[in-house]
Structures are given as structure tokens and as C-alpha cells.
């Protein structure tokens, strides 16, 4: 494994499978009455969150605590963009405190890469701007494998705001590494220029893709995107790219529906779909803890030689 987890693209197939298998073992601990392991006792994990994200921060916090690490939460809204302390000064402060791992969420793409240049501890990217969110992709892969028993050859459609989605970028890279067949589906305005070079197929037609999916992953679409003329109205978006019950019925029987949250019910996903038996949305949250435990364990505890 690399010293940091900055991009899902940095993970080899063996690395990714090691994380998934480790998470599988660690998940069993969550079923025990006493959920704690002594593995990271005496190690310090800093949750450095420059962007609001209660669910991801809690997930990392629980993961670190179950491994007995000391956890420091450092949350600040805004960043050096809004004239606070600079990212570098924050990094030097954490370095002086001896952080063994820094879990960072930041609104600027590449902020974890910059931190990795200033901090000697391990950096875990917990979502950077519109770049990547590798632990989300790992927990998504873990969830698919648990539900469907395999990853190799799985047909996965990622639907929604591909342009602005860090979840989409990490998932495309990781799922390709793991042998899945990925397609991204969105209106052309929400597809990045250059998407043709990604290891996936590109479609503008959700209805054509759904009958050939084992997994459909719906992404959050912010209504504010309308102001940027990415689509004419929330209703039109929902009609063309939202997953409602009639559309869900066109999926193969075994197919599952995923969403990284938080959801816009009625926008990209209908309430009855989100709450259906196909939906893995709550499992994804639970699996997030196991996967983040595995990442911290492998980066910090596993092998320090």
C-alpha cells in the first residue's frame, strides 16, 4: 500500500482487495458486544474537516475509536480561501502535535495532495472538492460485494452530476481496477469534457442503461445547478434522470440501488425507491465504518516495516 490514500486510482487491485477483505473481517467485530480492538492504541488520528460532513466525520471517528486510536476532531468552515489560517499553517500545527494520520475533507480539489507534502503522517482523503472520495468508493465496492457476491464483471451505472462528483471519479477508477464494467449516465451538461478518456462507457439515456445493470448508483444533484443552466428545471431533470418506481421495475431482478447520501428525495431518487428492498443506502453507512477501519488499520497499524 501507499503511505497515503489520496486517490482511488492509486490503489492496485491487490491493495483494493486487501482493504475489502480486511473490512470484511473488521465488520464482524461490529457484531460483537465489545466492539473495540487495541490495534491503534497510542496512535493519533486527526479528523480535519474544512467542509461540513457530519456523516463522514462520524464514520471516521467511530472507525478510529474502535481501533483504540486517540481521535482529535478539527472542524472549520471555510479555508484559506476565506482568509482563515492557511492550510500550510494548519498542517504544520498538526505535524507539531504528532498526528499519525490526518483524515481530510476539503472543498478544494487537491488539498490532501498539498497536505501530503507538508505532513509526515498518513493522509486519508475524505473528499476533496470535485476530485475524489476514495473511502466512499471502497465502501461502495464492499457493499456491492456483500450484496452480490462479486465485483468482477458487475455492470454498474453511475447516474447524475458526474461533472461535480468526487464519488463518481473515485468509483469509476476503483471499479475499473476491480474488474467491473462501469457506465456513467448524465445529461451532457453534467458530464466533464474529457470523460471519453475515463475507463467507462458514457450514456445520456438512463432508460437504455437500466435493464443492463447489476448496480445503479444515484448521485446527489443539487437544485442550485439549475442556476448554472446545467438543466432547465428540477422537474425535467427528475423526469429524465431520476430513479422512480416504474424505472426501478425495468432493472434486472437482482439489481441493487445505491446512493452515497445525502439524498434529494423526489429529485434524483423517489422515496419509494430509496426505501425499497433493493436499496443499500443504510447498509452503505454501516459498511463505511468497517471500510474506514480497514484503511486506518492498513495505513497505520498493519505493517510498519
Amino acid at each position, binding site marked *: 500500500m501507499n503511505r497515503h490514500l489520496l486517490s482511488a486510482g492509486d490503489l492496485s487491485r491487490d491493495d483494493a482487495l486487501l482493504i475489502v477483505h480486511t473490512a470484511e473481517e473488521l465488520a464482524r467485530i461490529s457484531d460483537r458486544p465489545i466492539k473495540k480492538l487495541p490495534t491503534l492504541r497510542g496512535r493519533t488520528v486527526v479528523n480535519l474537516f474544512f467542509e461540513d460532513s457530519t456523516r463522514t466525520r462520524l464514520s471516521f471517528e467511530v472507525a478510529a475509536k474502535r481501533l483504540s486510536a486517540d481521535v482529535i476532531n478539527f472542524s472549520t468552515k471555510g479555508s484559506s480561501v476565506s482568509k482563515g489560517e492557511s492550510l500550510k499553517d494548519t498542517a504544520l500545527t498538526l505535524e507539531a502535535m504528532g498526528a499519525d494520520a490526518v483524515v481530510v475533507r476539503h472543498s478544494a480539489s*487537491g488539498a490532501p495532495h498539498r497536505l501530503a507534502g507538508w505532513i509526515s503522517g498518513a493522509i486519508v482523503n475524505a473528499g476533496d472538492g470535485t476530485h475524489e472520495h476514495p473511502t466512499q468508493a471502497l465502501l461502495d465496492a464492499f457493499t456491492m460485494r456483500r450484496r452480490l457476491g462479486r465485483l468482477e464483471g458487475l455492470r454498474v451505472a453511475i447516474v447524475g452530476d458526474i461533472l461535480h462528483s*468526487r464519488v463518481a471519479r473515485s468509483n469509476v477508477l476503483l471499479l475499473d481496477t476491480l474488474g467491473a464494467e462501469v457506465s456513467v449516465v448524465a445529461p451532457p451538461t453534467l458530464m466533464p469534457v474529457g470523460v471519453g478518456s475515463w475507463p467507462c462507457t458514457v450514456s445520456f439515456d438512463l432508460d437504455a442503461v437500466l435493464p443492463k445493470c447489476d448496480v445503479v448508483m444515484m448521485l446527489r444533484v443539487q437544485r442550485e445547478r439549475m442556476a448554472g443552466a446545467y438543466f432547465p428545471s428540477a422537474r425535467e431533470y427528475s423526469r429524465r434522470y431520476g430513479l422512480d418506481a416504474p424505472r426501478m421495475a425495468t432493472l434486472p431482478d437482482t439489481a441493487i440501488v445505491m446512493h452515497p447520501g445525502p439524498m434529494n428525495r423526489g429529485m434524483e431518487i423517489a422515496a419509494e425507491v430509496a426505501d425499497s428492498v433493493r436499496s443499500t443506502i443504510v447498509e452503505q453507512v454501516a459498511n463505511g465504518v468497517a471500510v474506514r477501519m480497514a484503511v486506518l488499520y492498513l495505513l497505520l497499524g498493519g505493517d510498519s516495516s
Partner: protein
Amino acid sequence: MSAWVFRGARVCGGPPTDLAFADGRVVAEAPVGAQVYDADGLIALPGLVDLHTHLREPGREDAETVETGTRAAALGGFTAVHAMANTDPVADTAGVVEQVWRLGQVAGHCDVHPVGAVTVGLGGQQLAELGAMADSAARVRVFSDDGHCVDDAVLMRRALEYVRAFDGVIAQHAQEPRLTEDAQMNEGVISAQLGLVGWPAAAEEAVIARDCLLAGHVGSRLHICHVSTVGSVDILRWAKARGIRVTAEVTPHHLLLTDELATSYDPVFKVNPPLRTAADVTALRDALADGTIDAVATDHAPHALEDKETEWAAAAFGMVGLETALSVVVAAMVDTGRLDWAGVADRMSLRPARIGRLSGQGRPLEPGAPAHVVLVDPAARRVVDPAAMASRSRNTPYAGRQLPAAVVATFLSGRPTVLDGKLT
């Protein structure tokens, strides 16, 4: 010491000869008592002229001053620079341009020709007093809102027309603002991968096309700053073929570097217009070679360390370039067989001087010409060390990179500003 003779200098790469100065001019024969300089193996070029330099004074003296920026210029072989108008206060009045011009005179490392702002405060709303700047002691002929595009078509048309009265030129920073809101880097494969907001080539090309049509319509002179795309080159070629009076510059970094460098997220590679693709680099080199692009201009843009040691999106745009420009042009153009030394002299001295209407610069090294000369060692190789630069800022994208050729000496009006590679 008012007379020099350079023994064995190869003028613009020609055969070895003795190049002599006396009293600030090139002379046919060295006068008795002239200082002799062994120039065996060195290339002599007319002093380089930069159409696009940010000296940051007044306002950001922590990043650069006229003194430090012109020291960097002299080390890079320049004898004249055009100081861009985006200072604080903006160079939009006769007072500010005269101040910058005088600071240049006092520093004495190279001529400083202030560029005047096109609009008041670079605001894009109201024409600045272009005539007052033209008539000032600074004799401004190049006007630019560089950093901002003059995107209002009517204002651009009026500016183009107005400066004809004193043979001025509008140097456009071609960037359609709506298409580039929050833009961070070239829009393409790499921006899609990195999740950085893209700066599409079309945002540059659309403005260049519009302005060429406007310049053609009113018969004015137009200059395009830092051309960066294949499409821009095509439009310029078309406009020149139609007889439109347009000139263009390209920066050294756009001749050598590509957007793949952004994958490091190191903002030292963040610049506006952004680094483009390898195909763009090739087209720019070819266009500079065939004259579609007239000149190399550095867009030397010094920034304080804290403005670059940040997240990519928070960092300032720009790179320093004066001290590496000639070497980069040698790497991109001479070593690839696209330009000979006479071509380098043409694109880095003669043509930029003509565009800026600098009658005392960019003259062939013939008897009677002003003694502005740079001596270059074409065989030298050096590794770029930011700490060794004369510029007050260190934001060079070439740190640690080996570059060909080195400036050995620079003479301004027959007086050495750089000798044996060091400031005098």
C-alpha cells in the same frame, strides 16, 4: 568605460567577428583603448525586449519591485520591458505611468516602458485617459487591461479606434469571462481527472476572433497577449492572411509545458491562460516559427510565497519568467530546429520592439544602432535554482530542470548591466 570590442562574437549566429561599441552605439571599428572582451563561441543578439512583464510596483513590492524585476530582466538578457498596468494603484493615469517609468530610469538595469490600462481601474467600464498616458514622459504606446479581458465589444472597438491617434496598440487578454468563471486549468482530460474547473480553449479563441474582426473593421492595430491554443493560431493565421493588423505573443512556458503538470496540484504550475496540451504546444511552436505569432513575451508574474503555498484553487495565477525565457526558447525553438539565432533575435527583440513602437530598441547590430546587446553561451547547460534568482519571487515552474544556453553579458546603451553572468 565607453568603448568595448567583443572578439569573435557570432552576431545572430553568423560567422565570428569583432563587434564594437563606442559611446553607446555600435561602430564599425573599435576605437583605440576599447575594452576587449573575449566572446569566442558566444552569440551576440540585440538586447531582448519583453512586451509583457509584471513588476508589481506600486502595490505589491513584497512580490517584486521595479529594481528587482529589472535586475531579473537584465540577467535574462533584456534591455527593455513593458510593465503591465495591473498594479495598485492601477497604471491608468499619466501620474502612475510616469512614476513607473522614472523608477525604471533610476534602477537603470533596463528600459522600463509602462503599459497603460485600457479602462479605469481595469474595470472594463470606462476608457482610461489613454491620450494623457501617451503624451506623458512615459510615452505609452501599449495599452492593456491584462489580467482582465476587455470583453465589452463596444468599449473594445472604441479603444482600438482611439489609440490610432498616437499609433498605439491595444494588447488584449483574450478570456471570455462567463466561460471561465472560477476556471483553474485547461479544460480537458486532465481537468476532468483532477476535478478542477476547466478553462476552455474556446473562451480565448472567441475573443480573438471577435477582436480580429473589430480591428479589421476599424483598421486599427491589435495585439493578442499570451496566445495558448491551436484554435487561436488558426484564427490569427486567417486574420493575417486577410490583412488585418494583428500581432500576437506567446509565453515561454506555453512553448514548453503542458497541463499534465497540474496532476501534482502544485500551484507553481497555475497560470492564466493555463498550460494547455501537447498539441497546443506544437502548434504554438510552429506558429512562432512561421511568424503567425510575432513575439515571445514572458508574462513574468511574480507572487509572494504565501500566494502559492496553498490549495490549487486558492493560489494566484502566474509564473516568473524573465531569467529563464531565453533558455526556454532555445529548448523549444532552437534545439528543435524551428528557429535559428536570427529568428530568436527577430521574435525576442526586433518584432516586440516594433509592436511597442520602441525606436531605440530591437535594432540589428549594425553601425549606428544603439548598443543594446546580449551575449549568449549556446553551449552552456544550467539547472534552474529558484534561490539564485534576482526576482523577489521564486515561483518558477522550472526549478530543478536543466535548460540550455546562458546569458553571459547584457549591455544597455553600451554599458554592461550583466557581465560574466552576474549583475554589475
